[in-house]
């Protein structure tokens, strides 16, 4: 009989090996799925793992999609390390996009390129505000942050819908639910001509460095992580759990908001009902697959970006629904969690013992009304 035996120490090897193993499992399931759907599995894998890397253009597109995932996941990693369960990043992302649009639509022809800074700052404020609601209700009223942050995603979606169908609708837009296309001055400068990738990538990479320093080289980051790993120890040490809650939520809200703002000031260029693309949820997976480590998250955000692009290609090339991306995303996280068991336990073969004879100990039933 297979038995799990706890390891005396966490396995460092497995903590890196587990995401790779999980990816392998996801790929194997993917191959089976392609075969079941009557598609050539080799071609399926090619579409997901080779085509997104094949040309310079493909690589830049990979970076375009990886940027928001990376930004949001950095914030979430900090949250999860502090044991704060912000799973409403999608809503904070939408609020970031809304706030950014609010600034961007006020630009006129004479506005200089400096407005981009305002657009992004507004996005950060939007994301933080939405996360602050969660922090306030948790801090002041003890309301579960998982449920509150998630409910706020639906509220944010409706708010977005109200704006693009109502007051912010482009009057010259043939009644389409979208704002005006924002002026060029409100857009992040592109890195190379001819490619959509822009300065957002550089912001994201700077954020990686900043989060690495915050997590591993500052006292504040240390306090946050102790609070997450051992709340009692943190309390004895006098670390404020309330401050940890606010810091984690505000920072992750800011990052999600920034990601939303960069989409407005980049690939999207206007506010539409299609702003919520699930990045806020996918980033949860990115954070875990990246081991809640800023550098790991760089790799996992690229992987997840490949899933997104692969899904789109699978639709156009193989005639498969785009939702395939979601299937693989979910599978990956599920497989990862299972594989993570190997960090703490090892599998041992043990002869099954004869089960001990069961003797009922309670004989009288307690009546509880």
């Amino acid at each position, binding site marked *: 009989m297979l038995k799990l035996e706890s390891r005396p120490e966490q396995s460092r090897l497995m903590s890196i090996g587990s995401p790779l193993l999980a990816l392998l499992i996801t790929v194997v399931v993917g191959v089976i799925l392609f075969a079941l759907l009557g598609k050539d599995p080799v071609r399926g894998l090619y579409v997901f793992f080779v085509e997104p890397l094949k040309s310079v253009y493909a690589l830049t597109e990979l970076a375009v999609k990886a940027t928001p995932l990376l930004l949001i996941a950095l914030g979430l990693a900090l949250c999860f390390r502090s044991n704060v369960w912000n799973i409403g990043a999608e809503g904070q992302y939408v609020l970031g996009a809304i706030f950014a649009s609010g600034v961007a639509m006020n630009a006129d022809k004479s506005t200089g390129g400096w407005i981009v800074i305002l657009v992004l700052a507004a996005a950060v404020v939007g994301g933080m505000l939405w996360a602050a609601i969660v922090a306030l209700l948790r801090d002041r009223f*003890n309301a579960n942050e998982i449920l509150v942050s998630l409910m706020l995603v639906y509220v944010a979606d409706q708010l977005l819908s109200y704006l693009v169908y109502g007051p912010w609708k482009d009057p010259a837009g043939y009644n389409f639910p979208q704002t005006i296309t924002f002026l060029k001055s409100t857009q992040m400068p592109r890195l190379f001509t001819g490619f959509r990738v822009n300065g957002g990538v550089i912001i994201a990479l700077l954020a990686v460095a900043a989060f690495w320093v915050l997590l591993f080289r500052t006292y504040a980051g240390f306090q946050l992580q102790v609070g997450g790993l051992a709340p009692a120890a943190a309390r004895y040490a006098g670390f404020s759990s309330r401050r940890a809650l606010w810091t984690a939520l505000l920072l992750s809200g800011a990052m999600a908001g920034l990601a939303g703002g960069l989409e407005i000031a980049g690939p999207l260029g206007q506010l539409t009902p299609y702003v919520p693309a699930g990045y806020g949820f*996918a980033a949860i997976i990115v954070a875990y697959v990246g081991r809640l480590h800023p550098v790991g998250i760089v790799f996992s955000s690229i992987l997840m970006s490949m899933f997104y692009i692969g899904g789109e290609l699978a639709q156009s090339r193989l005639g498969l629904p785009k939702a395939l991306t979601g*299937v693989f995303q979910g599978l990956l996280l599920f497989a990862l969690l299972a594989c993570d068991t190997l960090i703490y336990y090892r599998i041992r073969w043990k002869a099954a013992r004869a089960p001990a004879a069961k003797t009922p100990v309670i004989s009288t039933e*307690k009546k509880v009304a």
Partner: protein
Amino acid sequence: MDSIALLLAATLNAGTVLAFAALGLLINERSGIVNLGAEGMMLVAAIAGFAVGVHHGDVMGFAAGALAGAVMAAAFGVLVIYLNTNQYASGLALSLFGSGFSAFVGIAFTQEKLPERMHFSIPGLADIPLIGPALFRHHPMVYIAVVLTVALAWFLYRSRAGLVLRAVGESPESAHALGYPVRRIRMLAVVVGGALCGLSGAYISLVYTPLWVEGMVAGKGWIALALTTFATWRPARVLLGAYLFGGVTMLQFHLQGEGVQIPSQFLTMLPYVATIVVLVLISRNKSFIRINMPASIGKPFFPGS
């Protein structure tokens, strides 16, 4: 008067969706397991129920939904109970997988229509003015939800097995020391809870909306999770809470019908905002929640570690 009857009928209808899911989650949580995958299980059950229901009728549709929910819950259960993974993360994985998987499978069914709906009515009672159309012309599942609530209350508070389940949720260590197979009991609770979430999902696609739309559960799984807290883990209160939230959900359509001058998006927000408000009100008193909450909720139990 007619509009009141309609509103009441719609409230029962919407409340039933939440009732099944929340009762299932209640069983989970009474055993100490939080399953954040409710939304995903309901989505997969909704498409499973619809896909089967289109050709084989309601009963088979509901069976398929329950089975889909149970299978997904079992996968979750193996992870959190036998592999000791984090319950929150695993539940999230289930929800993410469920929304992707249901959208993927559901593409083939977006144009499908269910066969002509049967009209149900309880002979005699259904003809009473006002009360008849409001209460006695529903799908049988509406009444099954009520029966289930009573049965669950009896099970939890009047049966030995229910006592064991609660013991496992309050203190798995003690239950283990007494010789109860804690992990097997938790697994059973998780699977049964998943099956009930499955019934809820199937109810959405077979009765409530009757069609398949991607993402059609629209947060009802999460609202059901909030309901268990709101109801302080008691079956009767879960049912009442479900009807209350059902009423809030339906109020938006009612208000729109009455021509209230509020943009429809703000009305659609209502159930979500109401959930937050209710969570705030109920959670405000920390000790009240702590007294009622199963003590081991969310905590893994791994014998011999």
